[in-house]
């Protein structure tokens, strides 16, 4: 049976844990709001870009070979880009993505897979397993900027155009809502062709300057950079959402535990008092009997 002091010590320990989880929850909530605002702010650009892309591909595609970034090569060499957080304490956020990426690796020809990891959690996971990591990017999440995305994207495009890889896939957490993040896989390169939406956008008869192909040359790299940027922002917002939810649950669990411990504490205290009383009564009784005889 735990002594009163032991129980009290445990209560204090759980209380201080609860303070930490509550603080983490508040911090995550504040950062989440900012991350969400950034996603919203970036949407007009990305949306319009996608529209222009469909438009141009059909305008430029009719004559000559497809743009190299659009060309389907059917080669076996896959590059998989895994995007996780730098930190844990975010529920299943990181492990979900890592699991999803492993599935994809198994579906591919393992010998032909190269890895690029973003976020410390993914790097550590694959490093522990002695996988070869082509490139990593860590410790930048707090100051995530478009330049991070464009640098990464340029690296992917360079490799793709040099013929070192035949496909590039992103695996990251998509931000569905504050409580829901879903690990998704997206093909980054070659740029997948959309089927719907393209046809009706193409009906506008534009004047092009200089010409559709030249504009496409400018647009495709930017499209790829925007895709990477969006994936990074989704992951960041998802991380904060996951951490907020996890820390909220942890705070609640701490509260439940404190409640149980407090009841235990009170019971033990009650028992101790009763025992003391019994001792006193017993002692007094004995004295009384002693004096009478």
């Amino acid at each position, binding site marked *: 049976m735990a002594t009163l002091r032991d129980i009290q010590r445990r209560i204090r320990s759980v209380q201080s844990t609860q303070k930490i989880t509550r603080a983490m929850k508040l911090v995550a909530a504040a950062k989440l709001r900012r991350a969400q605002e950034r996603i919203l702010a970036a949407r007009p*650009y990305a949306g*319009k870009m996608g529209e*222009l892309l469909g*438009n141009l591909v059909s305008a430029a595609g009719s004559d000559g070979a497809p743009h190299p970034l659009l060309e389907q090569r059917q080669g076996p060499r896959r590059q998989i880009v895994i995007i996780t957080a730098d930190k844990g304490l975010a529920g299943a956020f990181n492990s979900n993505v890592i699991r999803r990426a492993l599935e994809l690796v198994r579906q591919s020809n393992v010998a032909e897979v190269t890895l690029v990891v973003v976020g410390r959690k993914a790097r550590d996971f694959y490093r522990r397993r002695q996988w070869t990591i082509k490139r990593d990017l860590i410790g930048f999440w707090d100051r995530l900027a478009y330049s991070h995305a464009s640098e990464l994207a340029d690296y992917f495009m360079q490799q793709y155009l040099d013929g070192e890889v035949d496909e590039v896939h992103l695996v990251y957490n998509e931000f569905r809502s504050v409580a829901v993040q879903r690990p998704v896989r997206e093909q980054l390169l070659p740029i997948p062709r959309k089927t719907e939406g393209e046809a009706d956008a193409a009906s*506008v008869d*534009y*004047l092009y*300057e200089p010409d559709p192909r030249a*504009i496409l040359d*400018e647009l495709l790299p930017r499209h790829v950079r925007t895709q990477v940027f969006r994936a990074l922002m989704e992951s960041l917002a998802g991380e904060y959402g996951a951490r907020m939810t996890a820390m909220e649950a942890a705070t609640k669990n701490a509260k439940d535990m404190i409640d149980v411990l407090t009841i235990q504490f009170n019971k033990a205290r009650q028992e101790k008092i009763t025992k003391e009383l019994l001792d006193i009564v017993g002692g007094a009784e004995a004295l009384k009997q002693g004096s009478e005889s």
Partner: protein
Amino acid sequence: MADRLTLEIATPTRLVVTESVDEVVIPGSQGYFGVLPGHAPFLTTVGVGELVYRVGRDERNLAVSGGFAEVRNDKVIVLADTAERPEEIDRARAERARERAERRLAGRTDEEVDYARALAALARAVVRLMTAGRVG
């Protein structure tokens, strides 16, 4: 057809402008071009330069670099790599960038890429200073 244009300027990180305007002058990669209501559908790339738009008698300007412009049904959409209003421009930084670029150009580097890069940096710095200059 409406007698005004709807202008939207967006960068990868934010929507900079959404306004109803009377006229826009855009620094296209093939030269500056003006857009008035009733313009034909037009799609072009944007270079480095000063974008000016007019609302009534009021003229406003932004320093833009790289990207695309689309004109369609009296709607002008500019997707720029960067777009800054004069008051957002860090003049000291632009000044430093200009000096750095000028030094590089004077040093005549062998690498052609470096030369092109320095030239582009110089253009951006000069446009920023020009745009910022109007308010200062």
